[in-house]
């Protein structure tokens, strides 16, 4: 009798503890864990900088193929190098959250640690949110560290004069752009646990977004049907607004800027809702089929 009572108490306490796993505690624990991992692989930070430098060298030299070309868009005229650099910087910074998050989930699956994450009382959904939030913060931080020296090496924006209002609008557009990738990463994480190909999924999404964003050329190069499709990609609007703020002194009162901010925020919310409702179904499916840890 005493034993049964004791057992009930243990089960009750266990259940209580499971319910009491606070989101903030787990969130901070994941941040601490990830910082420790990054600190263990300090060399990868230097390698990351070198890789970024190489990528931007590629776009710099590609832009030099059309050095004399002046690109006119939304009432401003800018040289091809600045035009390409502005587009590529925004796409690179914002897509980093997606690629890093999905790479992280793929690594967990490959190493076999994903199964443990799935069964943690903290919950896989909260883990996804915390992990992607970390990658978002770290991605922005490391991008700033990387891009300052790169912009000294390739002074693409040396002739750009920008007002305080435009800087504010530019930062707001960038933030919204990063936010949309946060939500997109959550949906992609759902697909990753279903089809287990996170790295490839992120590569394909980033490839298509880069193509449609017009980061490398104005959208007028596309045929009409592709121009229409490109308008449905929120990043296309973001790149356009970003460039307007940088080269045309666009502010938040400009229709392109505020429309893009509203579209980005509403798309981010829409993607989050899709994630929220699809998560449970996908999670139950992998549990039923027993493919939680399969890679």
């Amino acid at each position: 009798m005493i034993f049964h009572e004791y057992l009930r108490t243990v089960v009750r306490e266990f259940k209580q503890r499971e319910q009491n796993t606070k989101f903030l505690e787990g969130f901070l624990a994941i941040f601490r864990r990830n910082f420790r991992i990054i600190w263990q692989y300090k060399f990868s930070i230097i390698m990351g900088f070198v890789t970024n430098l190489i990528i931007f060298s590629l776009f710099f030299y590609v832009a030099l193929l059309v050095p004399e070309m002046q690109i006119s868009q939304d009432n401003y005229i800018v040289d091809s190098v600045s035009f390409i650099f502005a587009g590529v910087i925004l796409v690179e910074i914002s897509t980093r959250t997606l690629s890093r998050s999905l790479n992280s989930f793929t690594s967990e699956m490959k190493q076999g640690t994903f199964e443990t994450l799935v069964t943690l009382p903290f919950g896989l959904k909260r883990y996804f949110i915390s992990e992607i939030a970390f990658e978002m913060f770290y991605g922005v931080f490391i991008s700033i560290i990387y891009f300052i020296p790169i912009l000294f090496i390739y002074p693409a924006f040396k002739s750009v004069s920008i007002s305080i209002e435009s800087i504010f609008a530019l930062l707001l557009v960038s933030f919204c752009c990063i936010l949309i990738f946060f939500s997109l990463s959550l949906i992609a994480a759902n697909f990753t646990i279903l089809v287990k190909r996170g790295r490839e999924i992120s590569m394909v999404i980033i490839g298509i977004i880069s193509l449609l964003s017009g980061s490398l050329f104005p959208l007028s190069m596309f045929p009409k049907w592709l121009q229409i499709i490109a308008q449905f990609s929120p990043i296309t609007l973001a790149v356009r607004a970003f460039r307007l703020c940088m080269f045309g002194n666009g502010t938040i009162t400009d229709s392109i800027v505020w429309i893009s901010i509203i579209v980005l925020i509403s798309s981010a919310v829409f993607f989050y809702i899709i994630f929220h409702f699809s998560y449970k179904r996908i999670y139950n499916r992998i549990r039923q089929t027993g493919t939680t840890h399969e890679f």
Partner: protein
Amino acid sequence: MIEILSSFKEETKRNSFIARIGAISISRIKMTLNYKSSYLMVLVLNITIVFMYFFFGKLNPDMEIFGLNATYFEYCIIGLCLQMIVGTSLGTANGNINNEIASGTWSSLFLQFNFLEYSIGTTAAGVFLSSFSILIVLSIAFLIGNFAFSITFQEVLLILLIFILILASHMVISMLFTSFTIFYQKDSGLVSLIYQLTKTFSGILFPIALLSGFPLFISNSLPFTYGLETLHMILFSDSIQWKLLAYNCSILLGMITVIGIIAYVLVFLSLKNVKKNGKVDWY
């Protein structure tokens, strides 16, 4: 006695160098085909990149491709297609050993391990599968950009020769970094760095005539620069420049020989070290 000898001969034939490489390749192809979704997604990505530079080329249809009689799209599609082969040749040997170590199969593979056979077998399988991607990308290029050539039989043979040299030169680089992977039981990350450098500085998306100083030095140190320059010359020049062809082929052969020998020695030493210290299956 005769029967025994003939069966022994038969067995030896089955276990010949080529047969073993063939067996490794077939098993790798079968394994890769288990991951069809990965293969398809990479193919979609490659097609997207081709589209991206197709539209970039439209930015200035009269874009000058230093000394070559080609449009920008014709110029870059050659490099973009071969980039897949370079990536496969660079990543396969090193990546597979790294996977074997991580998944714990390295200790059993290690017992009958012939590094050269393993490298050639796995790389050949990877290149075989990548070739399908190239065919699909070229077909799309033909459809969207009217990309077509008429080349002679002699040019086909030369392209094949350059193709093999490019493949081998990147395979030996991968073999070189495998020695690090075997020794330390972890990936150095240098293979992906070399791949990034090759993508940027070997003249895939812009002619190396645009480079100067240190970037030009990097470009001249990469084997793909020589292979791609020769291919562009064969495809876009009015006549074959035999001097350039001989020079570039010699450089590629030299790189294959020197890096190959160093890689083989280093792998041998690494294997000896891990055997001595009992680190075969340790991760």
